[in-house]
């Protein structure tokens, strides 16, 4: 009992913190709510960290909730990634929060609620709980997207996201009903048992149900053709929210996708692989189209995030074909994408905080001369996102492509590599814009504060993650991250 309480303590902390921030929100008190929420997240992070590396798999309060809620090493790793991601997102936007008047207490309460939803998502071992967690996270994010109600773009983005999101949610419920009808349970273990107990061709309805569930999740990660909202919503949302959606929320979604996939549907791999391959191709090509044709950096990053989802779908497809090692590559890719995209968005947020700009390619002309250090770091992030060797992004792609080739998906891997080459175009376009144009502006002083230090940290991580052999002793290497992911995945079996 006490032990189980201890296991869910991090999530309880987040909820209580959210409630507290909610109640404090009306106060005009000089309270640094950003730091307060970071503190709460850090507490939860510390509590979760103590369990890292320890193999465990416990259904929490099984007598009461049944097997709907699990704490295992898989969810622990994802909790850490989500909490860490949210923490970094809040910290790196420190300057941005200060420069905008509309971030009051409610904002941080909503962020914490969203984090809670994401954590619950990684713990859900039952589809209805998964749905509820997904909706908790999504609802908070809907509200966050439209948070700056003075900005018509922001309001519009929220509206679009709500409409399309509820459409997707409805499909999830439809799929859920079908699955329940086929198996008589929504608990993942029971579904897996059902699949194992029946012959392959008796699963028609289950497959259809699963298909709808997956469509919803693919919608959330922005796979083509369910991607249309991504660019507009990412663009309209306030920068911190865009960061949260692009990185942390995606991590949580992959938590539930991997859990459902590896736990249950992997046995039905034959049926999945074709639709998944089609989705992969569409997502990779469509995403690169999207990213190519944007003139705003935020929109370009949004388009490219679709492409990155496509890479992870390649790995997911490799899993359906039986190469279970590919799941580690997804985890690693999530981390690598997180590091580079948070860094890139961090620079955008830093600039938006200090220079109030639209942040188009035009605005970056001569950036290399006016902000030499930031420009260098931006280049690192772009290189990492493009998957340039000696950055962490390269290793992430490398693992994904080797996983795909091991699963016999040579054509997909080739397409992935091709799209990675295309991505060089739009990432390098930014680098070229930064360095190949003169600027009338003089060099700006580079000051160390929370935001810039974190950006610097992300840049170092991008490089270290790419070349980090044991060059720096006593520090974990990318191998260690992969080892960690492998360890976490084992608890799913």
């Amino acid at each position: 009992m006490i032990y189980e309480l201890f296991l869910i303590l991090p999530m309880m902390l987040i909820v209580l913190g959210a409630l507290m921030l909610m109640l404090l929100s009306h106060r005009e008190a000089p309270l640094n709510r950003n730091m307060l929420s970071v503190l709460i997240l850090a507490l939860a992070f510390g509590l979760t960290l103590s369990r890292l590396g320890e193999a465990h798999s416990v259904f929490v309060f099984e007598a009461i909730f049944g097997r709907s809620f699990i704490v295992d090493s898989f969810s622990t790793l994802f909790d850490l990634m989500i909490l860490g991601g949210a923490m970094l997102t809040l910290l790196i936007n420190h300057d941005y929060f200060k420069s905008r008047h509309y971030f009051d207490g409610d904002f941080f309460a909503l962020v914490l609620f969203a984090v809670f939803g994401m954590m619950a998502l990684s713990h859900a071992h039952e589809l209805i709980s998964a749905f509820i967690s997904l909706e908790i996270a999504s609802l908070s994010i809907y509200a966050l997207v439209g948070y700056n109600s003075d900005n018509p773009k922001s309001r519009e983005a929220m509206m679009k996201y709500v409409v399309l999101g509820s459409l997707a949610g409805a499909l999830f419920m439809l799929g859920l009903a079908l699955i329940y009808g086929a198996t008589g349970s929504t608990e993942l273990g029971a579904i897996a048992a059902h699949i194992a107990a029946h012959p392959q061709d008796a699963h028609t309805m289950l497959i259809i149900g699963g298909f709808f569930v997956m469509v919803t999740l693919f919608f959330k990660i922005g796979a083509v053709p369910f991607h249309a909202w991504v660019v507009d919503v990412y663009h309209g949302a306030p920068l911190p929210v865009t960061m949260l959606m692009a990185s942390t929320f995606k991590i949580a979604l992959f938590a539930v996708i991997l859990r459902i996939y590896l736990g249950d549907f992997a046995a039905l791999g034959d049926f999945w692989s074709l639709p998944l391959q089609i989705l992969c191709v569409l997502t990779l090509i469509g995403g690169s189209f999207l990213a190519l044709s944007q003139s705003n950096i935020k929109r370009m990053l949004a388009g490219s995030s679709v492409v990155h989802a496509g890479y992870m779908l390649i790995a997911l497809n490799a899993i359906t074909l039986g190469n279970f090692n590919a799941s580690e590559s997804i985890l690693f890719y999530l981390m690598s994408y997180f590091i580079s995209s948070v860094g890139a968005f961090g620079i955008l947020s830093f600039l938006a905080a200090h220079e109030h700009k639209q942040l188009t390619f035009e605005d970056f002309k001569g950036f290399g001369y006016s902000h030499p250090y930031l420009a260098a770091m931006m280049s690192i992030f772009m290189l990492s996102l493009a998957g340039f060797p000696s950055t962490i992004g390269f290793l992430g792609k490398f693992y994904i492509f080797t996983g795909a080739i091991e699963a016999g998906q040579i054509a997909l891997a080739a397409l992935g590599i091709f799209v990675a080459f295309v991505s060089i175009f739009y990432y390098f376009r930014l680098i070229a814009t930064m360095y190949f144009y003169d600027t009338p502006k003089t060099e700006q002083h580079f000051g160390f504060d929370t935001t810039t230090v974190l950006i610097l940290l992300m840049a170092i991580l991008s490089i270290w993650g790419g070349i980090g052999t044991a060059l720096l002793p006593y520090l974990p290497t990318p191998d260690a991250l992969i080892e960690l992911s492998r360890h976490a995945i084992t608890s799913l079996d």
Partner: protein
Amino acid sequence: MSLALLILLPFGSSLLLGMLYLFTSLRSERLYALIGVGAPLLISLIALWLGYGQLQGAESLHVSLFTWLSIDALRIEFALSFDHLSAVMMAFVSVIGTLIHLFAVGYMRGDAGFGKFFAYFNFFMGAMALLVLADNPIILFIGWELVGLASYLLIGFYHRESANVTAANKAFIANRVGDFGFIMALVLLFGAVGEGGFSFSAIEAQIYSVDHALLSLIGVLLFVGAMGKSAQIPLYVWLPDAMAGPTPVSALIHAATMVTAGVYMVARFDFLYVLIPAVGLFIAVIGILSALLSALIATMQSDIKKILAYSTMSQLGYMFVAVGLGAYGAGIFHVFTHAFFKALLFMGVGAVIIALHHEQNIFKMGGLRRFMPLVFYPMLIATLALSGVAPFAGFFSKDAILAAAVASEYPLFGVLGLVVAFLTAYYMMRLLLLVFVAPAKHRHTSLHVSPYLSLPLLPLALGSAVAGFWGMGGAYGGGDALTHFLSLSDYAHHLTHKSEYLLALLSNLIAFAGFALAYRRFASGAREPQPTALFERWILERFYVDALYHALLVVPLRRISLWCERIVDDRFVDGTLGLFSGGYRTLATHFSTLQNGNVRHYALYFLSGVSLLSLLLLWRL
């Protein structure tokens, strides 16, 4: 741990200086100088302490800091070792390095890049320490590359002048050619013995199992690396140009320490070269040719620093003769003594250059003895030492090399060595006379020399005078202490005491003959030579080697690059790519029209996606 300190201290202080220089507006020279000189001072204390331990017969130290790489059989430890050879190298590198750092404080005073200079300088010390202390060839190679990098940065230190940048590039490229040989050698060596560990001792243990032909190839390739770093024929062209860097750089890197890395490396691999005497002979031939050629060129140069640069190359040639003929101890002995007097000469020259406001032509100097006795007398000692006059340091080490050459199967090396000695004495005395003794050609009446510039000369002068006694041969009652201490696998050469005295007498006579000739021609001043004879013109134009390289390598390469740029790249590659990328971008524009901002259309895409995928499922089920 103290070994790690030898590496970490200079790198750390370099980083600190670099950070201070880059990120703060601190420009206090005192602070930079304190940090910049403090670090080498500390490491020289440590190195001397450790070296004293070795002298007392302590075990050689081995430290493995961490595993750098571990891929199957490829297991590279980041390991350092401190044995007798590295003790000698480390001791003089750090001590002379410290003195040169001190000198640089005076030399660089008022330069805008003061902090940057010391950051680079300390970086060089760290790299050199890494090179000397490396316990396996890979780490040695890292140090080797890092000193090359430091040298590149420092040659191009005044990077606003394009000639300096060209010189830096030249040095870098010539070294790359050598490094290519070095890398190939390492790869081959690893292929041959890598399975059983790759530290020097492990290689030594397995070396007998390697095929003789392969071993010879490895030996030659390693020496190609040494040619680049130590400026031997044919990769020497960078060294004279490298004098574009500030004078302390020339003293530290291009005279006393870095350029001797090639000799050090060959001595390190003594166990390998002992097995392949034919390659050793090749090394000796290259060495003596380099020595002869550069000594000849030096006799006609008028740039004071270039004379010393060619002299350095010539002395390096001596060292290679020694190691090529298997007299490793003698080679390292000459490295050791040469470091003292060549550093001294460079620093003295630096003081002269500073005093004359960056005048480098010796024919425009003269009569400086009156103004700077504290520079003249140390330089006189160094000149005597370099010319091999007994009993200064250079005499003993040069004599050891000549003795080894005479005693070997090829006494011709000894004869040629004596010719080089004559030329050396001639051009050194020429330099000294023209700068200090001959009637003045300049209008300065009083010249100021900062104590930073002159004081470091004194310990070096002392070193130039007495450093040779450590390695004094048996004939002079010394007993080859240094050679025994180093205990490298020297060939047994034997020369009777009588013939050794004869040799010493001969070489001293020759040196004085050189002095006499120089005195006759230059003591009362001379004009800049206008070459008349064909041979003289050849020498002045440095045998047209640079021009030859330019015509044979640089020009054709540039032509090919231009062709590639204009035809292959522009038409072929870009054309094809342009076709693809243009098409892709057009498609992208069409695709993005779908992104029209209407949520009803978005929902339509969504649902049509769902229905199409449903149809697919329907077909599959």
